C-alpha cells in the first residue's frame, strides 16, 4: 500500500521549511507534499488522488497569494473524495469571520496559532493522523511506532486478524 499523504500549504519559504522540518518524523509512514498557494495545492491533491493515495492531512496557512487557505479548505470539504481528510489551519492572521467559516463550512479539525512549538504541532498532527488511519486504513500496524501506539493497538484489538 502506498503511503497516505500529508500536504503542507504555506507561501513563505522559511515558514514552510520549519513546518516540514517539524513534521519530518511522520515521513516514516506518510508521504509529505508541499504547496505554496491554493492552486498549487489543488494540483497536489489531484496528483495524490490520481496516484491512488489517501490524502490524510492538510496543514494550511490562511493568508496565501490569491485564494485564501480557508476557501481552499472549504472546497476540499465539499468534494466527497477529500471530505474525510483531516484539516488543520496553521496561521496567525485568520480573523473571526474566516475562522468561523473554517469551522462551519470546511469541517476544520484543529487550529494551530503561529508561532507554534514543535511539540504541540507534533501532538496535533499525531492525534489527527491517528484518528484518520483508525477510520480509513485497514492495516494499522505500520503506524504503531509513528503515531499514538496505544490507541492504534486498542483499535487493532477490534480488527480481528486470522491467527
Amino acid at each position, binding site marked *: 500500500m502506498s503511503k497516505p499523504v500529508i500536504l503542507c500549504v504555506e507561501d513563505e519559504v522559511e515558514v514552510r521549511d520549519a513546518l516540514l522540518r517539524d513534521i519530518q518524523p511522520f515521513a516514516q509512514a506518510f508521504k509529505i507534499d508541499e504547496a505554496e498557494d491554493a492552486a498549487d495545492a489543488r494540483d497536489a491533491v489531484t496528483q495524490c488522488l490520481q496516484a491512488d493515495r489517501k490524502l490524510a492531512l492538510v496543514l494550511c496557512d490562511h493568508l496565501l497569494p490569491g485564494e485564501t487557505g480557508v476557501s481552499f479548505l472549504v472546497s476540499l470539504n465539499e468534494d466527497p473524495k477529500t471530505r474525510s481528510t483531516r484539516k488543520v489551519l496553521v496561521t496567525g492572521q485568520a480573523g473571526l469571520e474566516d475562522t468561523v467559516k473554517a469551522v462551519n463550512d470546511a469541517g476544520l479539525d484543529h487550529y494551530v496559532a503561529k508561532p507554534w512549538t514543535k511539540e504541540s504541532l507534533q501532538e496535533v498532527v499525531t492525534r489527527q493522523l491517528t484518528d484518520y488511519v483508525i477510520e480509513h486504513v485497514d492495516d494499522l*500496524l505500520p503506524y504503531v511506532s509513528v503515531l499514538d501506539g496505544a490507541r492504534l*493497538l486498542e483499535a487493532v484489538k477490534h480488527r480481528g*486478524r486470522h*491467527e
Partner: protein
Amino acid sequence: MTKGRYIGLASAIVLFFLPWFVEFPGLPVEGHRVLGIFLAAIALWITEAVPLHATAVIIILAEILLVSDKGILSAPEGFEPPSFRLFFGTLADPVLMLFLGGFFLAHGAAKFALDRNLARVLLRPFGTSAPMILLGLIIITAVFSMFMSNTATTATMMAVVLPVMSTLPPGDRMRTGLALCIPIAANIGGMGTPIGTPPNAIAIGALARDGISIDFLQWMLMAVPFVLVILAFTWVIMRQLYRFNGKRIELSIESTFDTSIPAKVFYVTFAATIVLWLTTKMHGMSSSIVGFVPVVVLLSTRVFSPKDLQSLQWHVLWLVAGGIALGVGVGRCGLDAWLIGLVEWNSLSSTMIVAALALTALVLSTVISNSATANLIVPLAMTLAASDGIAVDPMVAAVFVAIGCSLAMALPISTPPNAVAVATGAVRTRDMALVGIVAGSMGLGLFLFAGQWYWALVGVLR
C-alpha cells in the same frame, strides 16, 4: 490484486479441476471431487488469493454442489450423498458455539476495559524489579490469551508496556525484551484452553465428530502444565538475552474499574461462565452449551447491543467452519482412506508419526495462518489415527497438530501477535526468530517427550 494472488487463484483453479481429468486408481469418483476441493483449498489458504474465511465458504458451497444430496451433479454409483444440511451445519457446529462464548467474554472485557485494568492490578505484586516484571508480563499475557484471542491479548499488553518502552534509550536490550515477551507468551498461552486459539477448536471439532469429547477442564489439564514449563523456560532465556537482571522498571499500574450496572452484570457473567466451563463434570453441560450461556445472558440483559453483536469476529468462526466442512467431505467421500493408503505407515513408529504431524504443522504455520494449517492437517491426522495397523490415538494426533500450529512463532508473518510486536519498532526479525525458534522447538520437544505419558497419567488418555 497482486501477482501472488493471481498465481494463487490460477493454481487453485487448475488444482480443482485436476482430479476431473486425471484418474487416481483406488479413489472413488466422489473422492476425486473432494480431492479437487482439498487441493484448491491448499492453494488458496497458502497464497491468500481470497481471504482465509472466503476459502472456508468456498469449500462449503463446493461440497454442497458436488457431493451433497442437493448437488448439481448426479451422485456416483454406490455413493450415498450426505445431506446438504451437514455442510451448512458446520457454520453452527457446537465447537463454534464454544468459541462464540469466548468471543462474547473477550469483547465484553475490551468494552468495559476489564482486560486493561486487570492487567495493571495483576502486575502490582510483581514489584519493580525488571526480571519480576518480565515474569509478570509473561504470565498475565499467557493467562489472558487463554480466554481472549492471542492478537487482542497482545494489543492489550503491548499498550501497557509502550509507555515504559518509550522511556528506555533506543539501544536498550530491555526494550526489545519487553516488546518480544508479549507475543511469545500470547502464542504459548493460546494453547492453554479450548477457546485460546482457533486451532484448538478445529482439533476439538474434529474429535467430536468421531465421538471423542474433550471438556474445558480436560483440555486445560492436558495443556496448562506444558504451557507453564515453556513459559518458565522462555522467562529464563529472555531475562538473560535481554539483560533484565539487576534492573528496575516502573510500570504505570493505575486502574479504574468500570462500576456501572452493565459492567457488573458482565463481570458476574464472565466469572460464572468460566466456573461453568471448569465444572462440566458436576452439571453435565458440555463446553459448547456453556459457551452459549453468556450469549443468552448478555443479549437478554442488553449489556450487549446489536452493534456489539455485529462487531464480533464472525469471520474467525467461519474459517473454523470451513476446516470442519473440509474434514467432513474428506471423511465422507473416501479421500481419507485413499490418502493414507499412499504411504507405508506400518514401517513408522507411532511416535515418529505424531512427531511428523506436529512438525509439519509447525513448519507450515510458520509461514501461513495457524487456523488454515490446522484446517488442512487435522483431517489428515484424524484419518491417520483411525486407520488399521497404526497405533496412534486420534486425540493425540489432533491435539499435537493444534499445538504444532501454536508453537510456530519464528517470523513476523507467523502469527498476528508477532506482527504487532514488530510494528512497535523495538523488535527485529532476528530477535523474534531466535526466541521463537528456541521456545517453539523446546515446547515441541517437551510435548513429544512427555505429552502422551503425562496425559495417560492424568487419565485423559486411555
